[in-house]
Each structure stands twice: as structure tokens, then as C-alpha cells.
């Protein structure tokens, strides 16, 4: 103990051993203060309650089973009283104490534990003239507001979880943080009578001080965080954002397809019909002109076919349908403007949506490599491991790619997120760039 432990986390400023001991003592004292409440409440109640309850069976001369029963009953009574005492102080004390502990964890360990408490519901005036606070009706608005506030405050899952923290901390954090202080105190008192023992105790306390408070880390990580329902709430918010994104992308995509059909193929088919109609009229009077129009009509039909083909390729690339991801990416590499090599370790075909997502991601990354990164060589790796399908596109270009909002990369990131996937961008300025799209999926 007392070695050269590197101080970590935010806010550790003390230098040297004495500084560290002082800071440790201070933090131990703060933690002791923040976690001792359950012991302060339960201790006296249990002691007083115990002496009261056990006084009944003291000196009892009944048969042994009866005496055992009495003691068990008295013990249960003491536990009940202690529980009631703890439950009474919990609503008023748990939240501020847990909040203070969270602030300590953030300042000392850099542990960010964000939680959300329930907010007071707005009260509503009903047609009957009563006020509804979300649970009950009240005659006055003031009463309804008060009750809503009380309800939000005392029926909060996070508040009850804070109570669990307080109980848990009382048996874990408290002993670890209080012992150095206790050793110091006892040592100081003992020095007068037994100088050696006293000094030894003081030294032990001082040496333990920089470490005692660190128990806040592991315990806090488990008990100071948000409750499961809050986590779920956050996940729901995240999913809602993704869904909004998806519906927007989908709408844009539909619009693009509609425009492609309307302005392209459809217009060409109209032109085709017109030239054929004109040719029909001309065929007797001016066969040469009719022939020219028919030739035009044929080239218009070829143009329409080309446009339809391009459109289909944009919606659902034929090779992807016919051969699956690996060959489709090979075909992409063959058509790419840069030299592209494909390495693949994918044992089976993934589901269609996943396949399409990765295909379009690789297509976009290849385009980026050629256009923005000015690369000359690209390596595409497809890989499946640990239930995750990854596509990595590395190039030798100029680098500096980032998934800033509104960029193509952030679009890719959002689309990957829709599948529970992620985008990793490693692109220092000056290159090289390495971008990975990873999507979790099941391959048989």
C-alpha cells in the first residue's frame, strides 16, 4: 500500500503522498457522510427496539420451544420497526444522497451516470369541474397540483432504485470509506496510552485513505445508474428517431423512383407513340420520312429500356438478387472507377434487407473512394464473425473523411443504425481511409 498508484479520472489534483492522503481522507469522509444514513437510522431503532422487545422474554421460564418462538417473534418485530424507519426516511433522503454520490463519482472518477426522474404531470380540468392529476380527481387545482407533484416524487422507480443504492452502499461503500477514518481516530486516541499501537493505527489509516473511497467506482456503476425502464425509454426515443429517418429516406426514395419513371421512361414511351402515330400517317405519302420516324421510335424504345434498367439497378441490383452479396460486390468492384479488390469470408447468404444495406453501403464507399478520396487502389473486405457481418472499404486516398451531419457518411451511419449496426470511420487527413460498416445478423 502507499505505492505509486497512478491517479486516474477527473479532478484528481493533489501531488505527492501527503496530498493524496489528504484528498483520500476528505473523500472517505464525504462518502461516509453520504452513505451512513441507513446505519444512523437503523442502528438506534434496532437497538432501542431490541431492548424494548427482548425485555418481554427476558427471564421467561417457559419451555424451550416457547422461548425460541418468543425470541423469533421479537426479532421479526425489531426487523419490522427498522424497515418502517428506513422506509419513512427513504422518500426524503434517497434522492439527494444518491444525487450527491453521483456528482462525486463524476468529479472523482469521471463516471457519468445520467438518470431521469419522473416529471410532474400537468393537471387537467374535467368537464365536471374537478381537477384530474393523472390518478385522482380533486376539488381544487392547487390540491391536484400538490398531489401530482407528490405522486411523481414518491412513485418514481428511480427514487426507489436510489433507496437500493443507499442500502447497498451502507454495507459496501460505508465500511471501506469509514475504516481509514476510524483507524485514524482510534489511533489518535490511543497514542496517549500506547504510543506504538496508536502510531501504527494512524499510519494504517493514512495509508488506506487514498484507496478507501475508490469502492465508489464498482458499486456506483451497478447501483447509481438509471433504472431499466429509463434505459428502455431512451432506447425508445432512439428508435423513434431512427424510424423517422427511415420513413423520410423511404419517402425520398419513392419520390426518386416516381420521378425516374415519370420524366424518363414514361416520357420516352409517349414520344414513341407519337412518332409511330406520325409514321402511320406518313407511310403512304412519304415512306422515307415514315422510315426515319420509325427508326427514331426504335431508338426511343431503347432509351426507355436503358432508363428502366438503370432504375431497377438503383432499387434492387440484379446481380444482388441473382447471386447475393459477395458476387454483387465483386461486380461492383469490376465496374468501379478505381482498382478494387474483394476479399470475402462470408459462409452463407444473409437476409435480403441486410444484404441490400451492405451492398449499397459498399457502392457508396467505392464511389467516395474514387471521387472524394482520389484513391487509386481500394480493398473491400466482407467478413462474418460473432454474428456480425462487416464490410470494410480501405483506400489509399487523401483521407479526412468524417460522418459529419448531412454528409453521405452520416446517411450510411443512420441506415446502418436502422439494422442495429454501426459505421466506423478511420480517416486521418492525408489518408489512408478505412471505413467499416457492421450489421448484426444471423447466418446459418
Amino acid at each position, binding site marked *: 500500500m502507499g505505492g505509486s498508484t497512478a491517479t486516474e479520472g477527473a479532478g484528481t489534483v493533489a501531488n505527492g503522498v501527503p496530498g493524496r492522503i489528504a484528498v483520500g481522507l476528505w473523500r472517505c469522509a464525504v462518502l461516509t457522510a453520504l452513505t451512513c444514513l441507513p446505519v444512523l437510522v437503523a442502528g438506534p431503532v434496532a437497538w432501542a427496539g431490541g431492548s424494548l422487545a427482548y425485555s418481554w422474554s427476558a427471564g421467561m421460564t417457559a419451555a424451550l420451544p416457547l422461548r425460541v418462538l418468543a425470541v423469533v417473534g421479537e426479532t421479526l418485530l425489531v426487523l419490522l420497526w427498522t424497515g418502517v424507519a428506513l422506509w419513512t426516511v427513504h422518500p426524503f433522503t434517497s434522492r439527494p444522497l444518491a444525487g450527491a454520490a453521483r456528482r462525486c463519482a463524476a468529479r472523482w472518477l469521471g463516471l457519468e451516470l445520467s438518470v431521469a426522474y419522473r416529471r410532474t404531470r400537468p393537471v387537467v380540468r374535467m368537464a365536471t369541474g374537478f381537477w384530474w392529476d393523472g390518478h385522482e380527481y380533486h376539488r381544487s387545482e392547487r390540491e391536484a397540483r400538490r398531489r401530482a407533484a407528490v405522486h411523481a416524487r414518491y412513485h418514481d422507480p428511480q427514487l426507489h432504485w436510489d433507496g437500493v443504492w443507499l442500502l447497498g452502499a451502507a454495507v459496501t461503500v460505508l465500511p471501506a470509506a469509514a475504516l481509514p477514518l476510524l483507524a485514524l481516530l482510534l489511533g489518535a486516541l490511543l497514542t496517549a496510552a500506547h504510543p506504538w499501537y496508536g502510531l501504527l493505527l494512524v499510519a494504517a489509516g493514512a495509508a488506506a485513505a487514498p484507496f478507501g473511497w475508490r469502492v465508489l467506482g464498482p458499486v456506483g456503476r451497478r447501483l447509481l445508474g438509471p433504472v431499466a425502464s429509463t434505459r428502455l425509454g431512451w432506447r425508445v426515443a432512439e428508435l423513434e428517431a431512427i424510424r423517422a429517418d427511415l420513413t423520410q429516406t423511404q419517402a425520398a426514395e419513392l419520390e426518386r423512383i416516381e420521378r425516374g419513371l415519370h420524366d424518363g421512361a414514361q416520357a420516352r414511351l409517349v414520344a414513341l407513340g407519337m412518332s409511330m402515330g406520325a409514321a402511320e400517317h406518313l407511310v403512304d405519302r412519304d415512306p422515307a420520312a415514315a422510315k426515319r420516324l420509325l427508326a427514331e421510335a426504335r431508338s426511343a*424504345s431503347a432509351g426507355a429500356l436503358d432508363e428502366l434498367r438503370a432504375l*431497377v439497378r438503383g432499387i434492387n441490383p440484379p446481380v444482388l438478387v*441473382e*447471386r447475393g452479396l459477395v*458476387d454483387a460486390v465483386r461486380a461492383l468492384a469490376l465496374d468501379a*472507377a478505381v482498382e478494387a479488390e474483394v476479399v470475402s469470408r462470408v459462409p452463407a447468404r444473409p437476409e435480403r434487407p441486410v444484404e441490400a444495406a451492405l451492398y449499397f453501403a459498399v457502392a457508396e464507399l467505392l464511389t467516395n473512394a474514387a471521387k472524394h478520396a482520389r484513391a487509386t487502389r481500394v480493398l473491400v473486405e466482407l467478413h462474418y464473425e460473432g454474428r456480425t457481418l462487416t464490410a470494410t472499404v480501405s483506400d489509399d486516398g487523401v483521407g479526412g473523411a468524417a460522418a459529419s451531419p448531412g454528409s453521405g457518411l452520416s446517411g450510411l451511419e443512420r441506415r446502418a443504425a436502422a439494422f442495429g449496426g454501426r459505421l466506423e470511420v478511420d480517416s486521418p487527413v492525408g489518408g489512408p481511409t478505412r471505413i467499416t460498416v457492421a450489421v448484426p445478423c444471423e447466418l446459418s
Partner: protein
Amino acid sequence: MRIVVAEDLFLLRDGMVRLVEAFGHTVVAAVDDGPAALAALLEHRPDVAVVDVRLPPTFSDEGLQAALAARRAVPGLPVLILSQHVEQLYARELLADGHGGIGYQLKDRVLDAGQFMDAVQRVADGGTALDPTVVAKLLGRPLRADPLGALTERERSVLALMAEGLSNAAIAARLFLSEGSVGKYTTAIFGKLGLVGDEDTNRRVRAVLAYLDAGRAG
């Protein structure tokens, strides 16, 4: 000629049958799925088969797979693959065995009956008939490790037309050259690609293959 047609869309299949019959050929079998195509190819050993890439039952590349399987069983069996889209990947697989008698064309080409029948004829004769779209993509690619870097611009365009499957006479007509000078260009191309000749047709296929391999090397 005896022809097998494999196409799942009734209208197209019927149209093609009528088209080749109008040109005086016989359709020995007209089938509409992959297994039937393979069976018909192996049973009839036609002078040429016209096969759609995407066929039932899976609607993936059944037709292509049937053609490849048939050519493994009967080397050099002439097959003209029709597709809604053309892919270098598929062109490579078809040409990989080095035999002639391969065509790979966009379905649109059927619109021009003369051109289409011309391609059928070339494939039946053991030549190649690659779609101009494939060839354009091949030629449009920047090539690196390349035996083709030595080719001149003129030789490249001759090679492109050769890849489409045109004869020297046809290339001459396309490029406004004399047939003799086209002959000189092709000899130069074979020389630069190191293809010593046994028979002209095979060298042409191998020239295209060399091109494909140059693309793959990169």
C-alpha cells in the same frame, strides 16, 4: 440450324421461336425453366441455344448455371445468353473455359432481328458475340498490370469489335479499313498478347480472355 430456346416469359419465348423460324431455322425445344433447359441442351445437343439468365424455379441465375453445366458436359456447346442486364462477372464465367461458341447479349438486341440473328449465327459458328455494353465497360476500365498497354488505339478498337464477335470483314466495314489491314492489326494484337495460332476463332476468344484477365489482375 437446330436451336433450343430457354425463356420463361411466354411472349418473348414465342416471339423468339417465330423469329428464328422466320429465318429458316428449326426450334427443337422451347423450355421455360433451368432444369428443363439443361436437360434439353444435353438431349438435343443443338447447333445453338438461346438461354435467358434468370429462369424459374429460383429466378436467380438458373439459365447461366444450366449453360455452364451443359458446356462442362459438352465442351464448346454454343450458347447465346440473353439478359435484362449485362455483367462483366458473368461474361468472365462464360468465357473462362477458353472455348468459343459463347454469346452474352442484352435482351434488347432482339429488337433488331437482323443483328440478333447475326449474333446467333456467329455463336453457332464457334465465335463470340459479346454485347457492346460489356465490351464498352471492359475498354472503359483503366488497366494497370496489362499486356494490353502495348496496344495502340487502333488495335484496341479492333480488339473491341473482335470481342463483340465480328469477323475481319465486318470489322473492316465498321472501321472503314481494308480487310487486309484488319488482318494486320489482328496479327499484331495476337503477337503482342503472345497468342500463337492454331485456329483463328480460338485465338479470338483467347484475345478477349486475355483482356478479361488483365482486368482481373487489377
